[in-house]
């Protein structure tokens, strides 16, 4: 197979004017490197600046970032619009808090146990949901589960403290002499969650499993006819992403010092979806960029609270209309085009 029809060749040439030059490749790599450098600097800032304020904002952003990253695995890579993430986040927080306060377990044992519980619940919910539904139905089914979980948390007084919530008065035990009882320790914990979820997603993305998920996202039917066990893959992604949410929940509890059923609220998940789309769903850096804008920007817009959120709303609309693939998506596309020989900036509309 070496001869192509003439027209085909010509079309291909029209699409990529010049062969990717070494230079351009290097510049693209440089841009990526700078991006990750900026990320590293941002991550280090709260500790270096040693400001309580930055530490706190950083902690919250890191936690939300970790949530967004873990949700991206399910929504962005596997293409499954399940909106029970907040419920598993809350489940992790409650389960670990109860294991620590009622059962007296050490935090570092409670964390994996809470994740295990979340994984089991996710498997029980996910199996029928993923098998029999997809699309909006999956979204609604998982949404209903999340709300049900919230109502149960609010009604099961004996266990969860009911609608009163639980006060969390413990800190994770020190690890290798590193204590988590100060603001900087808690920040480190949150940042660690972010890095761990990023590492997990990176591993998945690079693996056969990750490629299978992408195939399912792109075309479930085709994937199954190529021999991918669609149900098992989807379920694995759901369980993994839910367990990650639970893990983040376990550290949320001591950081926030207080958990209530409102933690399981579906609005949290829906906002996270907004974050993903804003940043670029299915891209590696998208959740981070989205989180910075969605949760970071209002912190720095120091104007009246009403208008701060109004401005955020306007911004979201503009981003979606102007860069429908999200910010990371458009950067990636631009760089890819550049690598292939197009100019880096041009005002031509992006498809």
């Amino acid at each position, binding site marked *: 197979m070496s001869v192509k029809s003439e027209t085909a060749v010509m079309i291909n040439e029209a699409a990529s004017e010049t062969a990717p030059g070494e230079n351009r490749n290097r510049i693209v790599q440089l841009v990526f490197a700078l991006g990750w450098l900026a990320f590293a600097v941002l991550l280090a800032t709260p500790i270096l600046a040693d400001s309580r304020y930055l530490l706190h904002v950083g902690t919250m952003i890191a936690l939300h970032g970790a949530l967004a990253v873990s949700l991206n695995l399910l929504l962005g890579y596997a293409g499954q619009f399940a909106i029970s993430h907040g419920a598993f986040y809350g489940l992790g927080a409650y389960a670990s808090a109860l294991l620590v306060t009622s059962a007296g377990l050490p935090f570092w044992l409670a964390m994996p146990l809470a994740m295990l519980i979340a994984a089991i619940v996710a498997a029980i919910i996910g199996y029928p949901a993923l098998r029999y539904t997809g699309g909006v139905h999956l979204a609604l089914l998982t949404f209903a589960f999340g709300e049900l979980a919230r109502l149960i948390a609010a009604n099961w007084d004996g266990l969860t403290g009911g*609608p009163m919530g639980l006060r969390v008065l413990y800190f994770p035990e020190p690890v290798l002499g590193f204590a988590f009882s100060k603001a900087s320790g808690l920040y480190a914990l949150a940042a660690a969650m972010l890095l761990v979820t990023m590492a997990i997603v990176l591993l998945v993305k690079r693996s056969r499993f990750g490629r299978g998920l992408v195939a399912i996202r792109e075309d479930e039917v085709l994937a199954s006819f190529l021999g991918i066990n669609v149900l098992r893959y989807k379920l694995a992604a759901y369980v993994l992403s839910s367990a990650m949410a639970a893990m983040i929940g376990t550290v949320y509890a001591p950081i*926030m010092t*207080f958990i209530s059923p409102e933690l399981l609220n579906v609005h949290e998940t829906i906002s996270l979806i907004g974050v993903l789309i804003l940043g670029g769903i299915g891209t590696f850096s998208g959740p981070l960029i989205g989180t910075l804008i969605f949760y970071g920007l209002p912190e720095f817009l120091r104007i009246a609270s009403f208008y701060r959120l109004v401005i955020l709303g306007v911004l979201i609309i503009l981003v979606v209309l102007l860069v429908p693939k999200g910010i990371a998506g458009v950067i990636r596309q631009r760089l890819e085009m550049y690598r292939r020989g197009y100019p880096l900036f041009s005002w031509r509309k992006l498809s």
Partner: protein
Amino acid sequence: AATTTMAIADQTVRIGMVNSLTGPHSGFDLPASEGTLMAFHEINKKGGITVNGEKVTFEIVSEDAQSKPDVAVNAAQKILQNDDIRIVYGIMTSGPGMAAATLFSRSEVLYIGGFTLLDTLLGKPGGELMIRTLNSDAAVAQSFVPQSVKVLGVKKIGIILPNEDVSRSIVETYKPLLEKAGVEVPIVEYFQPSTTDFAPVLRKFQNQGLDGLFVGTNDAVVEAIVRQTTELGGLPKKFMYRGGSGAPGLKYKDQIEGFVWQILTRDLEFGDDPKVQEWKKAYTAFTGKEISPNTYWGLVYYDTVFMMAKAMEQVGSTDDVEAIAKAMKSMTYEGVRTMRFSEEGRARSDIDIGTLLNGKISSVRASAE
């Protein structure tokens, strides 16, 4: 984060304020924040206070809790990051309140709040530097229950409350007192807090031989319950309202027989106390807003601010919060209302009880004890 500065003084002391300025709880917190701001504004306008011979004015750093517990913690964190802020005001509702207060209890700040469950923190480790500007339910109920039972003449009532933070503690406090006052309480129901349609749960109270309903915990809910009671029929026409204002009852005064409510500060609508009248005028001038049934929450913090200022003058310090708290707890302050705090930080001020009986409205002062 809004700031108010008056820069003629020798020293400016920054005060923190956390409130739900947005979200469903802002009905309580917005007027409350206005009352606080108004008091500080008045102090600054008079040139501030004098502490150790220095003129001191105040600057408020305000954060929005958005009616959500996690945002409240976030807001509290942001206040606390200012090392110079040693006194924090705000939050009337227990969801965000408990979340933020857990954090304050770990910090060296004087926290002056209003929500009900703050009572559970007072007098306990971590609660030493906390003050609740509202009388505890235990205190309020002592006078409210016998008074309202007497006024309404009820024998058998049902309790209907939202399934939320405060309701269970309310039942624990009020039910025994009701029974002590000779009232039978055969039925207690909790409904989902976001409920708007009460028909099904009210049917549980229908035809039970009840002559009264004990309701709570905010105007929106109570107004809905009162209205739907009148629509469904077969339900009692007398109500005891724990908290809030008289508005829900007054609105349906032709359809119901009696309505008794707590006025946790002073009666703004029917009282004739000149101090209250003056305050109302000042409030309208300061905020540009009409007096509404929720306005009186503004009064909750208003006097407390002057108490705090006076305490600062007394102890000669603006940042020795332990001394300031102690001074506040040992004074009796004659402001718009008479205020006092217990050792533990519970308000011991007089309250009003509003009564609507067969279309006639009145209010009485009830003792704080």
